[in-house]
C-alpha cells in the first residue's frame, strides 16, 4: 500500500516538473510584455534597462532554471501589473474560487445523485425518462449563456438575487468564507447553480448507469433471497458500490469545476482566480499566468492522487493483498 502511495507521489512530482517546463516555455517564449508595460514613447535604452530589471534578457534555459529555483522556494515572480508576488495574488483569490467550486460541487451531488438513484431504480418510469432527458439538456447547454439568462431572469426581471459580486464574508471554524452570511449565500446562489449545471447532469448519468449495473448483479438477488428489506438492499448493498466510481469521478471533476469557474467568475464578476487569469492573459502578465497554471497543475495532481486513494479506501479488494 505504501509502495503504491510512494509510486504515485513520484509520478505526481514528475508530472509537475514536466508541467513547469511546458508552462514556462509556452508563456515566456511568446509575446513581449515589455511592449505592454513600458510607455510607448520610451527610448530603446529605457526598454533595454526594463528588460534587464525584469530579467528578460537572459537565455531561455537560464531563465527557466532561475525560475525553477525560485519556484521551489515559493517565489514565482511578481506580477507585472500589480507589482506584487504572483503567488500572493493567487492565494488571495483562491478562497473565493474554492468557495464557489465547493458550493457548486455540493449542489451537483445533492441534486444529481438522488435523481440518478431514482432513475436507476425505476428506469422505465416516465419521470425517469424525463430526468434523463433533462440531464442531456444540462450538459448540452452552454453554461455561460445559461448564466446570462439566469442573471436576466433572477436579477433583472425578478429581482430576487444579486447579479454580481461576492457577498459579505464571515467566519466558519476560523475560515473566512461568504458561506457564513445570508448575504453571502444570496450572492453565491446563482453562480454556484450555474457552475453546477454541467456536473448535475454528469452526476445523474453516472449514478444512474452505476445503479442499473449494480442492481442487476447476483449479490443483490442473494440479498433479496435473504429476505432483507428493499431499502437496505438499495442503500447498503447497492449504493455502496455506486459510491466507488462516483467518488473517484467527482474528485477529478472538482478540478474541472475549478477550471470552469473561469467562465462563471467572468459573468458574475466573482473575485476569484479565474477572473484574474483572464485579465492576466489579456495583459500578458506572465508571472501570474505561470503561477496560476502551476498552482492549478498542483491541485489537479493532488486531486488525482486523492481519487486513487479513495478508490482503494472504498474497495476492500484493492487493499493489501497479503491478507487471507
Amino acid at each position: 500500500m505504501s509502495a503504491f502511495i510512494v509510486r504515485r507521489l513520484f509520478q505526481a512530482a514528475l508530472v509537475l516538473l514536466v508541467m513547469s517546463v511546458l508552462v514556462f516555455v509556452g508563456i515566456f517564449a511568446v509575446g513581449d510584455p515589455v511592449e505592454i508595460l513600458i510607455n510607448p514613447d520610451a527610448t530603446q535604452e529605457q526598454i533595454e534597462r526594463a528588460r534587464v530589471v525584469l530579467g528578460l534578457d537572459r537565455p531561455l534555459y537560464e531563465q527557466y532554471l532561475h525560475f525553477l529555483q525560485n519556484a521551489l522556494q515559493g517565489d514565482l515572480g511578481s506580477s507585472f501589473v500589480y507589482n506584487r508576488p504572483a503567488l500572493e495574488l493567487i492565494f488571495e483569490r483562491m478562497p473565493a474560487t474554492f468557495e464557489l467550486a465547493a458550493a457548486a460541487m455540493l449542489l451537483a451531488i445533492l441534486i444529481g445523485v438522488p435523481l440518478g438513484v431514482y432513475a436507476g431504480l425505476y428506469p422505465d418510469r416516465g419521470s425517469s425518462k424525463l430526468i434523463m432527458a433533462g440531464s442531456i439538456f444540462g450538459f448540452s447547454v452552454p453554461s455561460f449563456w445559461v448564466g446570462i439568462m439566469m442573471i436576466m431572469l433572477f436579477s433583472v426581471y425578478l429581482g430576487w438575487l444579486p447579479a454580481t459580486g461576492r457577498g459579505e464574508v464571515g467566519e466558519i471554524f476560523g475560515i473566512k468564507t461568504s458561506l457564513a452570511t445570508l448575504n453571502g449565500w444570496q450572492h453565491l446562489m446563482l453562480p454556484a447553480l450555474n457552475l453546477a449545471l454541467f456536473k448535475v447532469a454528469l452526476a445523474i448519468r453516472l449514478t444512474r448507469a452505476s445503479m442499473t449495473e449494480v442492481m442487476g448483479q447476483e449479490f443483490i438477488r442473494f440479498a433479496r433471497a435473504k429476505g432483507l428489506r428493499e431499502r437496505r438492499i438499495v442503500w447498503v448493498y447497492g449504493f455502496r458500490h455506486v459510491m466507488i466510481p462516483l467518488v473517484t469521478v467527482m474528485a477529478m471533476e472538482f478540478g474541472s469545476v475549478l477550471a470552469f469557474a473561469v467562465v462563471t467568475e467572468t459573468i458574475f464578476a466573482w473575485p476569484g482566480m479565474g477572473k484574474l487569469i483572464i485579465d492576466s492573459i489579456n495583459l500578458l502578465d506572465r508571472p501570474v499566468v505561470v503561477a496560476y497554471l502551476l498552482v492549478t497543475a498542483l491541485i489537479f495532481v493532488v486531486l488525482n492522487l486523492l481519487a486513487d486513494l479513495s478508490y482503494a479506501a472504498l474497495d476492500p479488494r484493492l487493499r493489501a493483498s497479503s491478507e487471507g
Partner: protein
Amino acid sequence: MRESTRHPDAAPTKSLTASLSGLLNTPAGRNAKEFFASPVALVASLVLGSVLILAIFAPLISMQNPHDLNSIDIMDARLAPGATGWSDAYYLLGTDSQGRDMLSAILYGLRTSLIVAVTSGAIALAIGISIGLAAAYWGGRVEAILMRIVDIQLSFPAILIALVLLALLGRGIDKVIAALVFVQWAYYARTVRSAAMSELKKEYMEAARCLALSPRVILLSHLLPNSLPPIIVVATMQIASAIAIESTLSFLGLGLPVTEPSLGLLIANGFNVMMSGYYWISIFPGVALLITVISVNLMGDRLRDVLNPRNRR
C-alpha cells in the same frame, strides 16, 4: 416478371423499392431504421438537418453579410426584433450594437461554429485513430507510453488547455481549430484504443493475423471498420462539445477574431448591454447554440443506444 425492352441476356434490373429494401437490410440500414424509430432522435435529426442547411446556405439566405462592414448601418444599432431600419431593412431578430442584423449574424455564426467544430473534430479524429490503433495493435511499451500521455492530458480540463493555448497562439480561426484539435485528440485516442482492444480479442482478428496480412491491411480494412460504432458515438458528442467550447472561448474574448463573429462573441456583446434592456442580442444566438448542441447530443445519445453491442442481436 415485367415486360422489358432490354436485351434478354442483360442482367435484370432491380426496381427502386427492391434496391431500397435491400439497402435497408444491411446492418447499417437496420441500425438506421432503429435509430429513427425514436421520435426524439427523429426530431433532433430534422432540427440538425435544418440547422446545417441554414448554415451552409447562409450567404444566400441572409439579408446581409455581417462580416462586410459596408453592408452594416451603424445607425441601425440596437433595434428591437421586428423593427425596420433606416434603409427600410427589416430586422426579424433585431440588431446588435454595431448595427448588424441578428438573424444574419446568427446564421454566419452557426456556419463558423460548425466549420470549426467539424474541422477540428475531423483532424482530432484522424490523430486519435492513428494513435489509438497503434497503441491497441502494438501494445507493450508503445501502448504504455501513448496511453500515459493520453491519461495525463485527459486529467486536465479541456477549457483550461484551450485557454492557455489560445493565450499563447493569439486569435484567428486556424488557431482556434488547432487548440480544439489539441483538446480533443486524446479523447478520441482513448475511445479508439478501447474499441480496438475489444475487437482484437475476436476471432476474425486472429484469422487475419494467421493469414499474415500486412499490419496496414489489418488495421485499415479490418480493425478500423469494426471499431467504428463507439467512435461514431464519441465523435457526435465531441462535436457538440467542440461547439460549446469554441463559443465559450469566444465569449471570453479569446477565440475567433472580432471581424468573424461567432455565436459566443455575439452573446458576449449582448452581455455588455444586457442590463440596459437589450436582451435580444444575447438570447437569440444562445438559443441557436442551444438547439444545435442539444440536437447533436440527442442524436449521439440515440446512436449510443442503437450501436450498443449489448443490444446487437
